[in-house]
């Protein structure tokens, strides 16, 4: 297994040196993206299943009523959690989220939060009561680039989210009072560096072979960035990853918003 991984890494790196990728994509090309909104629409307030190549992530959004944070008493609350389910990869274990899951959740969280995508001030109900938006990322099949698949599925699920009816201090489950107010669509785009080249949307093999990784979440500005991996990045590599992320972000945003 370990030896196999090393051999694959060499093979991938040599391919990249020749300007090629194992699945025939260009360096700036995403795998096929399918977005199925409302995938678990009978119970969740919002949901979306994203297939990014063979990578599959399901995000469900649940709404509850709770207390605001003391420093923002008139705003709703959002929490993003990610679970790398053990079915998604032989290397994922059952149990509480590890550092990899926490990183996925926090990068997605920052992109949504910092772009102001959810209009938090509209989630105020009355003093001491606001809507709590739970975004639960469920990674089902890890074939590379979980962060982008999770980020795309999360904002797609939020766009799909209905507000439950709330009357007499009670949530009426199964009845709705409109959509969750969303103001913009932050999109994460992840590039990796292999042998001094920058490739977008890494497959699993490319993640093994990469020196470093850079995720850039964009709307009309950059809203979040996260470097990963044990290698180093040069300034021009970072800048070209940013340019790629703005470009691809625009394309993917259209996919998310749908026809």
């Amino acid at each position: 297994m370990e030896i196999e991984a090393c051999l694959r890494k060499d093979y991938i790196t040599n391919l990249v040196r020749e300007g090629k990728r194992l699945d025939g994509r260009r360096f700036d090309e995403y795998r096929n993206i399918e977005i199925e909104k409302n995938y678990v629409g009978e119970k969740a307030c919002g949901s979306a299943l994203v297939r990014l190549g063979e990578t599959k992530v399901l995000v469900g959004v649940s709404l509850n009523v709770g207390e605001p944070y003391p420093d923002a008493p008139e705003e709703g609350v959002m929490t993003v959690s990610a679970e790398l389910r053990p079915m998604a990869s032989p290397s994922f274990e059952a149990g509480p989220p590890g550092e990899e899951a926490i990183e996925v959740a926090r990068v997605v969280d920052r992109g949504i939060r910092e772009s102001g995508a959810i209009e938090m001030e509209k989630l105020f109900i009355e003093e001491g009561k606001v809507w709590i938006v739970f975004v639960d990322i469920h990674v089902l099949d890890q074939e590379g680039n979980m962060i982008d698949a999770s980020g795309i599925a999360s904002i797609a699920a939020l766009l799909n989210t209905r507000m439950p009816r709330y009357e007499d201090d009670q949530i009426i489950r199964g009845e709705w009072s409109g959509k969750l107010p969303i103001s913009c669509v932050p999109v994460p785009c992840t590039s990796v560096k292999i042998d001094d080249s920058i490739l977008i949307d890494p497959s699993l093999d490319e993640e093994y072979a990469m020196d470093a990784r850079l995720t850039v979440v964009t709307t009309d500005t950059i809203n979040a960035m996260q470097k990963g991996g044990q290698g180093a990045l040069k300034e021009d590599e970072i800048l070209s990853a940013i340019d790629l992320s703005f470009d691809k972000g625009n394309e993917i945003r259209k996919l998310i918003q749908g026809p």
Partner: protein
Amino acid sequence: MAKEDIELIKNGKRLDGRKFDELREIKIEVGVLSRAMGSAYIEWGKNKVIAAVYGPRELHPKYLRDPRRAHLRCIYNLAPFSVEDRKRPGPDRRSVEISKVSSDALSSVVMLEKYPNTVIDIFIEILQADAGTRCAGLNAASVALADAGIPMRDIVSSCAAGKVNGEIVLDLMKEEDNLGECDLPVAIIPRKKEVVLLQMDGKLTREEFKKAYELAVDGAMRVYKMQKEALISSVNDVIIGE
């Protein structure tokens, strides 16, 4: 359970229009995941469930290894968004119990003796839940085991029956499970019609039990047919694909 004053049956029909011995709609897909060695998806009424199999693979820590047979571990998990009131992530007592009885049921058919010292892991994810998830999960798990090519003596097929407004009915949906008088999930080895999982809670006389039990076994036999069809058509897909 036990609130008999709610009208779940009108004019001999159930809330969703089903007859007493009618299953909800069931759809099974084989091989839905890329990383897992075997996988299956089942849609059963509003239930949406994926099962995946890894193994036989190394078991850690070492002192848990059994030199006579593989260890089979089944983990049943309810996604936080699978129910209307968000479930906190992580196993609760109900999930732990279902994982245990499901492990037992599947251990009865898998040829564990072929893979001493290893572990076979089966993961069941409930993506949307509407009563009957343990049966749906077991059915998907059996198909996923077959898809993974793990040798089995037979498949496991599962279905529940129950008692609603005094009537014995097949395959309870959420409202019937919540407000009915009894739930009886059963899993069988179809060839021998023997039971590998059986749980029950509520109120049943001996006669009612017999009737409900036979109805559940009959339902499981019908599910068995669908499992076989899904597996055959997945093999055909592969052959045609080639």
